[in-house]
Structure formats: structure tokens, C-alpha cells
């Protein structure tokens, strides 16, 4: 009975298949099925959640070809290339029995989908590669003689518009173009002189002259830095519970300088990923690596430092992929990528590049780079000179490196085997009376000195260091005096070669029970100070210690690799759990991208950077070009900037993206400014942004670019524009972050009494990019306009439109203050007449004359405000009723749709 049923079923299936074959012969015989375009989307949507990187039901996976053709649990392969009729996978798609038919427990595939899959198997079940993982190849530029076209961008755009039966828009008027390109390139309206020159120049070159002057403006770097800070998750605090301050603004300044000097993008990335590994790195190259030190540090008492070190390392891996390679790699930390060709272990091989850095979730954020000020920098120069004269080049380099970075040193929080002692607040090894602790695996070869940073609270502590056991060979015995805060001490050690566990024992006659006697910050095993028999050695040595412990240096957390004898192994974490360690792995990059490591690449982060910036890397250039396009046009060619993979959005203009990406590498030599110039010089960019009814119908979201971009300003631009038009912007560049007006009571971090203390004078009128960014409590006005908390890398801000945004520009006292200044300027520059004053305000904001209807609305507002202030005098918004009424108008101007939008 059962058998005959099966037979009958088989008969029908065979018949159906035969019928399908006939159909396919008609539809697909001529055309080759495109794996990426036709097959992969079906697999991703309908099959892969059960037969992919996470689950392999029935032993069948469709992630890689070799897996798909492999034997399944049934003992046979599910796909026989060339033979859909013999392929179990195809058979299962058409069955009636819900237990057998695939997709299991879901709607059956459509006829068309089945046809595509069948034809694909028939044609050999070839695996295409996803476009974004294929190296860039030259693309044929569409031919056209249309006079609208200005450069290659327009050729691609126009060709697509023609297939959509749409027409491009004419060029926007000069005023609109000026404002658009100024906001885009410098993040703020162009200075008056630049604007005037543009308006007065009626030649064809006028626009290009404008673009060149904006690209050369120092404000260019500030604008693009603001964008990059979301990718770098830049913040001025460490995150988590206490969310204390972190000094890392030098990295922000490095970004500004790099954008301004148009540092080639390959260099720009290399310095951020591996600046510390470049030969003889400069201070600025070290500072560039702070890109990856913007990860969070957890200062909460009782936290496991290794847990949060690991979390930071994983965050670096994720940010590297998302920000720089447009790929969502984070899912591979738990299992093989469900959709894209990355396997679980590859995450950890990649992680191995980042797993040997010195940072260990310490309170101080070690390792830090110290930059000296005033007297200390003279002291530093003197030390350098003395070392040059009196010691070897190697010794000089070693000493200066240690002065600037205190590397290599062991952080005391890595000690263990505590007896009657503990890590104080889980941060520093603190000793009590008769306490014991251990520091494991210290390399003592040719190191007979110990320099350490400590705080001692009693006058008569006795510290002993023993090798191997608590009562092993004595390395040193030290009388610890009471210290004034953190101090340095250097002591000789019994010479001993090889790796040893160091045991600390400590006692103090005056110590009360349970009281702490001393604590350690870090320990540096070393040789005697070089040249100590030369004249001036004492003074040089004292400078050396003073420079290490100076509280005045500007410090920046940096990346720095472990010394050879401190290397950590890297293991796979089973299902992403850092406590469950699997196989050990070596540094490596995912194979499926098919980009070989450059031959001369070292096996570290520098090699990784060389691999990323190799012209063969398919992702780095595409990701950056796509991002820049999004910044100018409002939406990326691939909408999902963070994911160019198979789960991301499809590119609207794939050939254009590839063309620009190849050009960015080869012709523009990674010049960001040239890339941007190409985009803003295009006719596509210069179009009018008014929407025709036809376009509204066909392409509301402007995916085909039949008009210019029209999008709301970013949080930073909203503020910067208001600063500019009100003539209050303090254009000072660089330096520690500043504190513009913020209402009281916003900051309330536990165990942290810090308050927002408003900057004084001009400092409160700095550009938005300099505003202090506290992770657990970001600046309210910016966060309301879709700024991000910068907890993790945010490759794309999603623009919203909410009443809370209106409340910021209407009521935030910071904006009211600017409105007052704006009104004063309108009055001063607008002349005697009210109408002219209002029109001046509009013109300052939008560079164009105010229409009669708009003027009337604003004038009516002025009159009702004026009437009110005459009867009820109030000087808050102006010294007299007229001034106050004009402030009300200025406040309204900040809120116009045109004002908060790039038109």
C-alpha cells in the first residue's frame, strides 16, 4: 500500500518534472542562469536558514558548492550537476507530502523559482560569486552624446534613466548649488567671500573654482571627521557604568589633519589599523591607531578584565569589517556566516591579528602615548640628546620608547594566586599584611632590574620577590616607604635567565588587620639605565623617571603589540562564548575573498593592512566610494553601507560603483578629495532637486537620480549652520573637546560625580565636531537629530523626522542664543527696513532672495511678536521690542524646512 503510494507519487513527480523540463527548454535554454542574480536570492530567502552556515538539516548545505554537492545524510548528494531529474533537491521542491516537500513547513516555491533552480542544476549547478567579493575589473562606460553629460558618472546614470524612461533634471540655480556643495564638502555654508566670488564669476569655470576652494578649506577635514567618528565609535568617555573621561581627542585631530592633507585612503587606513607597526612610527602614526582604541573599557568594580578585553578585541574585528570592508562579519563569531562565504574559524583567524595587543581593560587605558608639554618637552629633548651622545642607538630607542609608552610592562591586574590580597576594585594588585600573589611567565633573560609604579600607604612595608615558588629563590627584598600617590621605583634583581613565575610576598609591622599596605600599577623588567657611568647619567635617569610619571602629558590610548615573550594564543570561541575555547588558530584572512596576502606582508596587523589596501581587495575601495556617494546623494549606490554582502541591498548602479572604485585606486591614487570632486562635478549631482509629478510617481526615493539630492542636514550640520549664519562660530581647530550649553541634570553616572561644566567665552561656539561626547549620555540636541551614541561602529545613520527635533531647534536655549545673534546680524546687515532685514536673514541661510509669500508669513510673525512685546516688555530675546521680535523671526528661520534641508 505504502509502496504503491510512493510509486504513484513518483510517477506524478516524474511527469511534472518532465513537463517542467519542456517549459525550461523554452525559457532557459538560451539564457544562462546567473547564480548571483537569479539563484542566490532564492537560496537566501527560502533555503539557507535550514541548509546553510548555521544549520545543515539532513546534512545538506547550500553555502559553498563543495558542500552542496557533497553526500548528505541519506548517503547520496542532493544535487547532481547536469541532472535535475536525478537531484533530490529539485525533486523535493515539487512533492505534495508536507513532510517531504521543501521548504519544510513553509510555502512551496513558486513555479518560476523552481524553474530557475532546475535550469541552474541542468546547467551544471555552478557557483557564481557575489559581485562585491569579485575583484574590480574595468567597466565599459555607456556611450552617449547627450549634452547634459559632464563626466562618466552621468553616462552611467543617464543610461539607466533611459531604460526607466525618465529624464534628468536641469542644473540647479547657483544659490542652491553653492549651499549644497558647501554643506557637503565643508559641512557648513561657504564663507561670504567664497560665495561672492562664485556669484560674480559668470564663466564656465566658476563652479569648479568654488569646489576647489571648498576642498582646500580647513573646514573640509572637520566635516569628514564628523562622519568618520561614527565609524570609529569616537567618544570622550570609556563607556559602561562609570563612563569616565578618556583623553583621545588627539585621534580626532589626526583625522582632521589627514582629511585636510588628503592623505591617500590606503595610507589613511594603514595608519589606523597598524600605524604602530610601521617602521619607526611617528607620534601621529601611533595616534592614528586610536581608531581601534575607541572601544569600551569597563571600570565597574568586580568586572572580569579579560572578559572586557576580549569584548574590545571582537569589537575591533567587527568595526574593521563593517567600516572598512562593508561586510557584516559579527555573525561569524558564533557560527559560519549564514549567507556569505565566511566560516566560523575564519572569524578567529582574523581576530588573531588583533588579539596580541597590549591593552587589558586597565583603568588607565594602557598602552598610552605621552606627548609632552612645555618644560617636559625640553626635558625630553635633553634626555634624547644625552642618550645620543652617551648610549647606543638601540638603547636610546628603547629608553625613549619606554618613556613615551611605558611599553613593555606587565599590568598588575594580570596577577593571580592571591593569599590575603586582591585586585583593588579589580584594577590594581593591592597587598595586605602577610600577603602573597603571583605574576606568571615573566621573561627574565638579561633582565636584572625591576622598574614599577606603585602607591604605598605605610612607612614600613617589606616587599619580597621570589622566583618560581612563594619561597623560591629570592630576587629582591625592598623596604617600601610611604609614597605620595603613584610613584616609580627601580630595584636590582638577582640575575636569572628564562621564564619564571614571580611571587610577591608582603608584610608591614604597622599594618592593621585587613588594611591595605601598597598597590601596584605596572611592572617593567629591564636592564640598568644605559650609560650610567657617563657624565650626567644621574640627571638623565631622573628625567627619565620624571617623564614617565608626569601628570602633565597629553595621553592617547594607542595600539601596540605584545612583545614576543608576552604573546597570547588565539582560540576559536565555541558559539561565540569567550569562556569556551576551541581549537587554536593563527592569523589569517578569509579564503573566499581570493585575495592573496601580498608577498612581502608580515604576519601581523601591518600585513593585514597591506592585504586590505591591495588593489585586488574587492571590498575596501567599493565600501569607501559607496560611503562617499551616500554622503553626497543621501543614499548609497548600495543602500546598506554596512553590508555589501548577499543580504545587503542590491546596488542600484553596480557598474558605476565598480567604475568609480577602480578609478579611486588607479587614477585617483586613493585621493578622497579627487573622488569627491568627481562626484560633485557631475551633472547628476548638480541637478535641481525639485520633484516632478512624474518622478514622484516613478521614483519617489530618487534611486535613479533624475533629480538632485534633497535630504535633511546631519546633527552636526544643523548646529554648524546656525553658528555660521549667526556669525558666532569660533573657528579654532583642534584640542580637547568642548562643552557648549546643555541643560542641567543630564549627566548622572553612578560612582562618578563629574558634571557638564559649560565652556566659557568663544569656546562654547565651536563646531559640533568638537563637542564632548559622553557615551552613556550623548549631547541631547545631536542625539535627537539622529546622532549615535558611538557605542559600536555605526556605518549609517538612519534619518528620522520627529517632533522632538522641532523642539530642539525651536526651544533649546543654545539655539535661542544663536537666534539672538542671528537677529542682530540681520539688523546690522539688512539695513533700516524690516522687510530687508528678514530677507537678509533668509539670504544668509539660503543665498537667495525671499519670495513675497514667505516674506509675508515671516513679517506677520514679526508684527504679532512686536505687538506682544510692546504691551508686555520682556528683554530676554532682545533689548527692545523690535530686537526681540526679530529674534523670534530668526528662531523661525532656523526651523524652516529649507533651512534644515540640503536642497
Amino acid at each position, binding site marked *: 500500500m505504502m509502496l504503491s503510494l510512493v510509486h504513484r507519487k513518483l510517477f506524478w513527480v516524474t511527469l511534472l518534472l518532465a513537463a517542467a523540463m519542456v517549459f525550461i527548454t523554452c525559457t532557459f535554454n538560451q539564457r544562462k542562469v546567473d547564480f548571483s542574480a537569479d539563484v542566490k536570492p532564492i537560496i537566501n530567502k527560502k533555503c539557507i536558514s535550514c541548509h546553510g552556515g548555521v544549520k545543515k538539516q539532513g546534512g545538506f548545505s547550500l553555502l559553498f558548492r563543495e558542500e552542496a554537492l557533497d553526500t548528505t545524510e541519506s548517503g547520496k548528494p542532493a544535487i547532481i550537476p547536469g541532472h535535475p531529474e536525478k537531484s533530490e533537491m529539485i525533486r523535493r521542491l515539487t512533492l505534495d507530502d508536507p513532510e517531504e516537500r521543501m521548504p519544510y513547513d513553509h510555502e512551496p516555491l513558486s513555479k518560476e523559482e523552481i524553474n530557475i533552480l532546475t535550469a541552474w542544476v541542468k546547467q551544471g549547478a555552478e557557483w557564481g560569486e557575489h559581485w562585491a567579493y569579485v575583484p574590480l575589473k574595468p567597466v565599459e562606460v555607456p556611450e552617449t552624446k547627450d549634452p547634459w553629460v559632464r563626466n562618466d558618472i552621468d553616462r552611467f546614470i543617464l543610461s539607466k534613466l533611459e531604460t526607466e524612461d525618465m529624464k534628468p533634471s536641469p542644473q540647479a540655480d547657483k544659490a542652491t548649488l553653492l549651499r549644497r556643495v558647501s554643506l557637503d564638502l565643508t559641512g557648513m555654508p561657504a564663507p561670504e567671500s567664497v560665495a561672492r566670488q562664485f556669484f560674480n564669476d559668470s564663466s564656465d569655470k566658476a563652479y569648479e573654482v568654488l569646489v576647489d576652494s571648498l576642498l582646500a578649506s580647513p573646514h573640509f577635514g572637520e566635516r569628514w571627521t564628523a562622519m568618520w567618528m561614527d565609524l570609529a565609535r569616537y567618544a570622550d568617555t570609556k563607556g559602561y*557604568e562609570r563612563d569616565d573621561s578618556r583623553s583621545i581627542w588627539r585621534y580626532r585631530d589626526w583625522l582632521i589633519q589627514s582629511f585636510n592633507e588628503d592623505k591617500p585612503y590606503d595610507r589613511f587606513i594603514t595608519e589606523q589599523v597598524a600605524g604602530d607597526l610601521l617602521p619607526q612610527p611617528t607620534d601621529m602614526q601611533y595616534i592614528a591607531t586610536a581608531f581601534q582604541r575607541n572601544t569600551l573599557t569597563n571600570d*565597574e*568594580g*568586580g568586572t572580569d578584565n579579560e572578559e572586557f578585553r576580549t*569584548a574590545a578585541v571582537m*569589537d575591533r574585528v*567587527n568595526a574593521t569589517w*563593517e567600516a572598512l570592508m562593508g*561586510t557584516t562579519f559579527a*555573525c561569524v563569531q558564533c557560527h559560519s*556566516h549564514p549567507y*556569505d562565504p565566511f566560516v566560523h574559524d575564519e572569524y578567529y583567524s582574523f581576530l588573531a591579528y588583533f588579539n596580541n595587543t597590549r591593552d587589558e581593560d586597565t583603568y588607565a587605558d594602557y598602552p598610552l602615548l605621552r606627548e609632552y608639554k612645555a618644560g617636559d618637552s625640553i626635558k625630553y629633548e635633553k634626555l634624547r640628546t644625552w642618550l645620543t651622545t652617551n648610549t647606543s642607538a638601540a638603547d636610546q630607542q628603547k629608553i625613549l620608547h619606554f618613556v613615551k609608552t611605558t611599553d613593555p610592562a606587565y599590568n598588575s591586574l594580570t596577577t593571580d594566586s*592571591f593569599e590575603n590580597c*586582591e585586585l583593588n576594585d579589580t584594577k590594581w594588585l593591592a597587598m*595586605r599584611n602577610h600577603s602573597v600573589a603571583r605574576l606568571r611567565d615573566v621573561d627574565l633573560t638579561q633582565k636584572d632590574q625591576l622598574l614599577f609604579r606603585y602607591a604605598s600607604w605605610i612607612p614600613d612595608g617589606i616587599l619580597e620577590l621570589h622566583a618560581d615558588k612563594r619561597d623560591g629563590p629570592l630576587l629582591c627584598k625592598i623596604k617600601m616607604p610611604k609614597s605620595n600617590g603613584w610613584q616609580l621605583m627601580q630595584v636590582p634583581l638577582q640575575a636569572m635567565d628564562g621564564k619564571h613565575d614571580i611571587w610577591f610576598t608582603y608584610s608591614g609591622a604597622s599594618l592593621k588587620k*585587613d588594611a591595605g599596605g601598597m598597590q601596584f600599577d605596572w611592572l617593567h623588567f629591564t636592564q640598568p639605565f644605559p650609560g650610567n657611568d657617563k657624565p650626567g647619567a644621574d640627571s638623565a635617569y631622573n628625567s627619565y623617571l620624571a617623564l614617565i610619571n608626569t601628570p602633565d602629558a597629553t595621553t592617547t590610548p594607542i595600539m601596540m603589540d605584545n612583545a614576543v615573550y608576552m604573546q597570547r594564543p588565539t582560540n576559536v570561541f565555541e558559539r561565540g562564548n569567550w569562556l569556551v575555547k576551541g581549537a587554536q588558530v593563527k592569523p589569517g584572512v578569509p579564503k573566499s575573498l581570493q585575495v592573496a596576502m601580498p608577498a612581502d606582508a608580515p604576519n601581523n596587523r601591518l600585513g593585514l593592512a597591506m592585504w586590505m589596501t591591495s588593489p585586488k581587495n574587492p571590498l575596501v575601495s567599493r565600501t569607501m566610494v559607496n560611503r562617499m556617494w551616500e554622503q553626497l546623494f543621501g543614499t548609497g549606490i548600495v543602500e546598506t553601507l*554596512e*553590508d555589501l554582502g548577499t543580504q545587503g*541591498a542590491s546596488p542600484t548602479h553596480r557598474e558605476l560603483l565598480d567604475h568609480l572604485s577602480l578609478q579611486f585606486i588607479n587614477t585617483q591614487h586613493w585621493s578622497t578629495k579627487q573622488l569627491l570632486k568627481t562626484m560633485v562635478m557631475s551633472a547628476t549631482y548638480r541637478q535641481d*532637486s525639485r*520633484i*516632478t509629478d512624474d518622478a514622484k510617481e516613478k521614483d519617489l526615493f530618487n534611486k535613479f537620480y533624475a533629480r538632485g539630492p*534633497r535630504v535633511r542636514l546631519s546633527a552636526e550640520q544643523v548646529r554648524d549652520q546656525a553658528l555660521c549664519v549667526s556669525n558666532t562660530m569660533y573657528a579654532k581647530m583642534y584640542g580637547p573637546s568642548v562643552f557648549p550649553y546643555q*541643560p*542641567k*541634570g543630564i549627566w*548622572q553616572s*553612578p560612582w562618578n560625580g563629574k558634571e557638564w561644566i559649560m565652556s566659557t567665552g568663544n569656546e562654547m561656539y565651536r563646531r559640533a565636531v568638537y563637542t564632548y561626547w559622553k557615551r*552613556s549620555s*550623548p549631547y541631547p540636541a545631536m542625539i*535627537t537629530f*539622529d546622532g*549615535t*551614541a558611538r*557605542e559600536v561602529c555605526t556605518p549609517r545613520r538612519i534619518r*528620522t*523626522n*520627529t*517632533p522632538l*527635533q*522641532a*523642539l530642539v531647534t*525651536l526651544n533649546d*536655549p543654545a539655539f535661542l542664543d544663536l537666534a539672538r545673534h542671528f537677529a542682530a546680524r540681520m539688523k546690522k546687515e539688512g539695513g533700516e527696513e524690516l522687510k530687508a532685514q528678514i530677507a537678509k536673514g533668509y539670504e544668509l541661510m539660503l543665498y537667495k532672495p525671499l519670495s513675497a*509669500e*514667505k516674506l509675508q*508669513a515671516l513679517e*506677520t*510673525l514679526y508684527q*504679532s511678536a512686536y505687538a*506682544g512685546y510692546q504691551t508686555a516688555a*520682556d528683554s*530676554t*530675546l532682545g533689548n527692545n521690542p523690535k530686537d526681540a521680535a526679530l529674534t523670534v523671526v530668526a*528662531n*523661525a528661520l532656523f*526651523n*524652516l*524646512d*529649507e533651512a534644515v534641508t540640503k536642497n
Partner: protein
Amino acid sequence: MTQQELHNQRLLKEAEEHVMRLQTRRHFLKESAMGLGGLAIGALLGGCGNGAAPAVPSVAFDPAHPMLPKLPPFAGKAKSVIYLHMAGAPSQLELFDYKPELQKLDGQDCPQSLLEGKRFAFIRGVPKMLGPQAKFEQRGQSGAWVSDLLPHLSGVVDEVSFLKAVTTDQFNHGPAQLLVHTGSARLGRPSLGSWVTYGLGSENENLPGFVVLTSGGKNPDAGKSVWGSGFLPSVYQGVQCRSEGAPVLFLDDPKGMSRDLRKASIDAINKVNQQSYKEFNDPEILSRISQYEMAYRMQIAVPEVMDIRGEPDYIHEMYGTKPGQASFANNVLLARKLVEKGVRFVQLFDWGWDTHGTGADLAIDIGLVNKCRETDKAVTALLLDLKQRGLLDETLVVWGGEFGRTPMMENRDGKQNPFLGRDHHTDAFTIWMAGGGIKKGHVHGETDEIGYSAISGKVDVFDVQATILNQLGFDHEKFTYPFQGRPFRLTDVKGKVIKDIIA
């Protein structure tokens, strides 16, 4: 969701909006002229609640109308949630989990078997056991154990389901709070309230859909991220209502700007924007116009709802509220007012429940007693008040901390603490829920005889999240948002609805 889908959705909205624009405008003028809170008008804007059923229940995000009310995938029992989070983690052993055996062990060394393989935040070496520092009794018909530290709550246990064997895997405040509210111990994920407003929109467009109220003088340890929107659009983050200054940041008209003048200026702005719309034909401008109108109405509606002075005396007596004070009790009363007005999710954080014994405020027999005294009456009043208004059935009330406390006395850094205290504990703690379709007078789960580990009915914080979403009409496994290349959900890869506590 792709732009294409958004596009289609938005086209529908635009059509809707064209029809409604005139009507809305008339309403706006009328409402404003009367100076009344336009609390009913939200319904008109949304196209929901005015008789017309919304087209498709979905969680599509439309940037032009992000707060439109939406239907959940299935009919949920609860319409709104009030989540009372006692930040710092209250001790279950002094409040709900009665352990007479622990009393017998008081002062003895902790057996090694309880310490092996465990990680603690502060306990080092061998700590002493600490017996319960409160008297317990069985209460109500249901006979639930509640200590004398919560005399008021003791009277309403028959409304409540207790989860007595909740577990977590985070033993530090910040990460544990993040886990409870965002499903991840790391920063960057959306909070429960954001998911809910993303999924359901807001029933009252003049009030934020997700309101946060804090007390105890500090923000929760994990900062504003516990009400952040993570990778969801920022519009879904919680709006913190403050007891000082404007109840919502920048809600108040600036000094020197009268209400009439503010209205006149919004009128002028929108008139100019109408002109711009004529020029550009961009629907985003229409959306901006309605956001400004909404902002104006919000300026009226929020202060109205945030003002508790109008509440009758018996209500103040019931909650123990004093208008003008910054207190947990006031926040609880506000929570009731907010859900009454259609706010979807009200999140309270009360800071100061950490009881390490490192100071008097942090002592199990001093600090904890005070925190109970400050909160017990108001929490109880909330249940009774919601009930008497017929709102308890559709309002889910959740009470809990981020983890539990150890049956051992904390010995920070291996030495005795100056006061009685308990360390952070992940293996067992109590959370309770009431209303919103939850069983009344029920106890789920049990711990061992010293309250150290769950022995039956063990649930974790993901299960609690799954249950909350379930009560609102969401299958937590299907409620997702695409991020980092995969559909993310609040409960990540975990979570089971706790069916036993559902009525």
C-alpha cells in the same frame, strides 16, 4: 526593509495624508485656538482608531511616520507595560525567597561546593553564610511568602505572579542591566521599550511612545543605553521625563516667548514650508509640517500629563506622593497617568538597591529597609489604582532587578565588610509580574533550601522578555530587525514564553 518596500508603503501613506491634510489642519487650528491638549487628534493623524482598520499589521518602519500605531501580529492581552526596575539588584532573600535553612547556617563558613567554578564580583576566598535579615509570612489567598519589609505589597499578592527562579549570566550591574533591557550585555542593542514602540507605534501621538522616569538620584548603571534604540532608528529611544525643569527636554517655550507667540511662529514656519512644498513637491516637507504641529501639541499634552497636582487627595494618600518632589512614588503615579493616556511603555528606574554592606546605605538591614519603605506603598497603589480604573487587565506591570544576591555574606577582597551585605548573584532571583493577562496569585519556580540555585521552574531574563512580548502580541522569535547581516531580535537566540504564568 528595502527602500522599495518603504517607497510603496510611503506612497500609501501619502495618499492617506492628502485626504487627511485639510481635516488635520482644521483640527490643528481648532485645538490650538482652544488651547486644549489635542489628545484625541493623534488618532486622526494615524489613520487608526478612527474606525478605519489599518491596512496590514506589520513592523515596517516609515521614516516619515515612524510612530504610527500598528497592530501586533496577534491579539495581545496587554496594551502597555510599566516596568519597575530596582537598579542595583534587590535581595530576593530578604523580600520573597524565604529560606529558614539559611538562618541555621548563619555565620558558618560557606561550603566549598558552592564556590567551586563560580565567579563572583567581590566575594573572595571563603565567605560566611548570612541568614535572612527579615521576617517572612505567607500572604493572601495564594499564600505567597513576602517579608515584613513590604507590608503593603503583602496585601496584594493575589494579583501577582512571582518568578522565583530567574537566572542571568551577568554579575556586574551595567552589563546585567543591559542584558535585562536589551538582550545583550554589550552596548549597541535596542531596549525592550524601543522594540515595543517600533512594533506598535504610539497610541497617542502627542506623547512620546516610550517614556523613562528615573529616581534615586542617579541614572541606571548602564546609562541611557538601557533605554536606547541601538540599531533601531533613534526615534524609538525612550524619552526621559524629568522631575526638574521641563518634563521633556526643550519642551518649554523659551523665556520671553509666550504660548501665543510660539503658536504664531509655528504657523509662520508652516506657511513658509507650504510654499516650499509647492516649490519642491517633496512629501518630506508635509511630514515636517505635521511634526511641527505635533511638537506644539506635545508642548501642551506632556506638561498636562506630567502634572500630578490635579490628582485627588485620596490618590496622593494611596501612593504617598507629594507634588513637586522628585521621588519614586511620584514616578509611579505618573506611570499610571501615562498609560492611561495611551503611552505604550513606561520604564522606571529606581537607583540605590545595591546591598554589599560596604556602607550603611548599602547594608541589607539598613539601606534595603529604607528602599523598601520608599517604594512599597507606591508600587502597591499602582496595582490597586490600575485595577480600580479597569486598566490592570491591559497593563503589564513588571518588578525586578538585574540579578539576585548571594546567600553568603560579602567579604570584599577577602575581608569582612563593615555592614551586613550580599554580593551579586546570577543563579537565582525574583521578578514579579502582574496584570496584562498574567495569572493572579501564582508562584512559578523554586530555589534550593538556601536560595542559591533554581531547582524548578528556572527561567532566564530572555524568557521574561519573551513573555512580555507575548503579552503584547508578538512572537519574540519572529519579531526581528535586520542588522549586521542578519535578522536580530530582542531575545537573540534564546527565550521561551513562560506559559505557566499566563492566565
